[in-house]
């Protein structure tokens, strides 16, 4: 039995998503919401295992919900479900703590497979997102940035290796074969990369807030 949050403003798509989710998780209790505000209220009261979050909503961005879920329910898994496939839209959501993303227009079967993978701990990672993550950590490792008081989170060599290969267009199973590792181990690396991205981004955000005097 799972509790699932569904945040999507278009009714047809929401209905379609619900059917999909019910197919993957037949026993799940599904809370639906079409606005960021409502979703934030729900997150306060209901404990979720999974949240499917659209980004462009009438009263704000789904990234807010991802952030709040990360704060209030660290065990909940946020997945961005979006029409935007570019890293400009996706990266902030990943930094906020989302574990992967699903593109809405993909075929039903593909989405079902991805949902299953995500629920089994295999988040997707595209080459452009991988490049963006590498650039982010490289930037942080620069000597000028190293002196900053942000707790330095860095990737391990293996994680970097996986990222590098994803950026070159290799699929996760291919990378597993190349590195002589199981598919699950590779998936774990990807999850770890997402986590580090979130931790590092949060530390940075906290520091920025401190600098701006938000926390006295």
């Amino acid at each position: 039995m799972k509790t699932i949050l569904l945040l999507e403003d278009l009714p047809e798509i929401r209905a379609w998503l619900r059917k999909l989710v019910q197919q993957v998780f037949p026993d799940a209790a599904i809370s639906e919401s079409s606005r960021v505000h409502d979703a934030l209220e729900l997150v306060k009261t209901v404990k979720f295992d999974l949240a499917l979050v659209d980004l462009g909503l009438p009263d704000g961005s789904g990234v807010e919900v991802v952030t709040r879920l990360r704060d209030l329910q660290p065990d909940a898994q946020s997945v961005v479900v979006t029409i935007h496939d570019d890293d400009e839209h996706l990266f902030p959501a990943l930094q906020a703590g989302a574990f992967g993303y699903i593109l809405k227009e993909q075929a039903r079967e593909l989405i079902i497979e991805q949902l299953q993978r995500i629920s089994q701990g295999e988040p997707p990672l595209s080459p452009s997102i991988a490049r963006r993550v590498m650039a982010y950590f490289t930037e942080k490792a620069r000597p000028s940035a190293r002196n900053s008081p942000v707790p330095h989170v860095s990737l391990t060599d293996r994680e970097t290796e996986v990222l590098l290969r994803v950026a070159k267009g290799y699929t996760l199973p291919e990378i597993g074969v190349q590195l002589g590792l199981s598919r699950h181990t590779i998936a774990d690396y990807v999850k770890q990369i997402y986590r580090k991205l979130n931790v590092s981004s949060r530390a940075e955000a906290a520091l920025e807030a401190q600098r701006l005097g938000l926390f006295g």
Partner: protein
Amino acid sequence: MSASHLPFVPGSLVRRVAVGLIALALLATLASAVMHGAAAAGPARTFTIRSALTAAGDGPALAGDALPYAVQTVNLPDQWSHTRPGFAGTLWYRVGFVHPAEGAGDELLAVAIPQLCSNFEIYLNGALLENGGRMREPLTDNCYHPQLVPLPAQLLVAGTNTLDLRIAGHRREEVGSRWRAGGLAALTIGPYAELDPGYARRLAFGVGAPQGASATLLLLGGFMFVLGFIHRSESHLAYFGALAIGTAMLDARLWVRHVPFGHQVQEFVLLALLAFVVWAAVQFLLRYAGARIRWIDRALPLQCALVAFSMLLAGAQRLALVADFWYAVFALEVLAAAGYHLRRRGHSASGRLMAALLTAVALAIAVEFASQWSPERTPLVVVAPLVLPLVFALVGLRLVQQHGRALQHEQQGRVQLEQRVREATAEIERNFRQLAELQVEQVTERERKRIAADLHDDLGAKLLTIVHTSDSERISTLAREALEEMRLSVRGLTGRAVRLADALGDWRAETMSRLAQAGIDGEWQAPDDLPHALGSRAYVQTTRILREATSNIIKHSNATHCAVRCRIEDGDFQLVIQDNGDGIAPDVDSRPDRGHGLASMKARAKQLHGQCLVESGQGYGTVIRLTLALDRAADP
């Protein structure tokens, strides 16, 4: 001088001493020139009278009679301060002489008086020969004037002749210099022709030269003062101007004989003028060395006032005392300023020149000081005052030279500055242009994002709804493809070039996972580390071509294997997609979906000035070759 400069001391000391000696030699030469005439005069018919009878009295001329007053015998040169302390007024001198050239025909005789003070009348055997000017206050001032008085032959008598001199003068205590106190030098009598050259020299050096010097200094000083006044940063020029003007006026004492005001006023003015000259001198030395000292700026004018005040307080009777005191103070001040100046600038070429010139000035002043105890106004004493104008003229020239050079530098600096301003302006304009371009870019980017957002929110949402709600698989697929097209178009608007290596990564990931999902064995060959870039349009179109080709393979070919090969050859980017499927049937053009797909692939390649070739044989699979020129494909 600090210890670190010690090694230089001997050298610079030697130089200074040498320069001092040269200055001394110059003085001596000048002095000997003055003396030359006297030395050349034949001793036989020229004689010097070294004693006289004196009597104080204001009475009329005593033509040939005995002196009616208390008579005293004095040696010549006579200083009243020695023989008649405290005396002021008029004093008679009588000397007798025997006609030296008896029987020498009508040769004109004359009496030469190298110095007397302040004014005189001269009588020969009771007849007035010459009158130097006013004998009452304000007295005509002849103190620095040599005199040569012809002795008319008709007044001379055989045997002893009587020469009476009536001298009006001042008390030593009332004047600032021994040379302006009452007195008479030794008289020389001889043929006029023999005495005249010596007299002329004395007149030239003692009166004519100072006149010329005064005029020169006045001009030079005025010029420098105006220069310094205009260029406030070169205040030393103004002080030098003031110094030169002050010295010129001070030198006027040597040649101005008829002053319109009384003797006391004259002495007052001279000392006050000296205070002013010292003020200018000290400030010039300090400013020229680049120092500006506040308390000295205030102290010097104050000193001028103090000098005037002290003279008023002391009164006329003690003027000599006050003057001597101030001379000492002034000498120390100038010496200190000179020392300061040389310490700061002594090691430069111009500092060494200043050292030499200051030494000469010091020597001249020393001679002037020493002369206060000299019985006679020797040639050296006569020429010493000329050193100052000479030195000032040299310094003035040097200053003008420096000023000219500074102007030249300034000119060059201005030219450079103008150049720099021009460059900076160009730079600013360039930056402005870049900024404007950047702004245009930003506006474009914002607009693109707005359009993209609108497309996603509106068109995207509707297409998406069709994708997921249509019952027809065909319509769903069309809508999905339309959505993809829309996104690619939106991305195409970004206009940013894509690294070929990144593009290959994207293409590989998409193609390989699609083939894998379709159960087709995928193979991908591409070189590593490509430095090339693809324009965004080339990227989008190539993506579409590859996607279309992959879709065709998945949907229509029944292939089990698909190889994608990328390579760079002769500046061309080549993409080859090969499958082992059924190949394309000859009637393919009549089928709406496939035929359209192939045609659109070719059209896209053409748009990129590239080529898309499709080779296919039924049963042998299909090969699609896309070739793009990289230099063209790199344009956005």
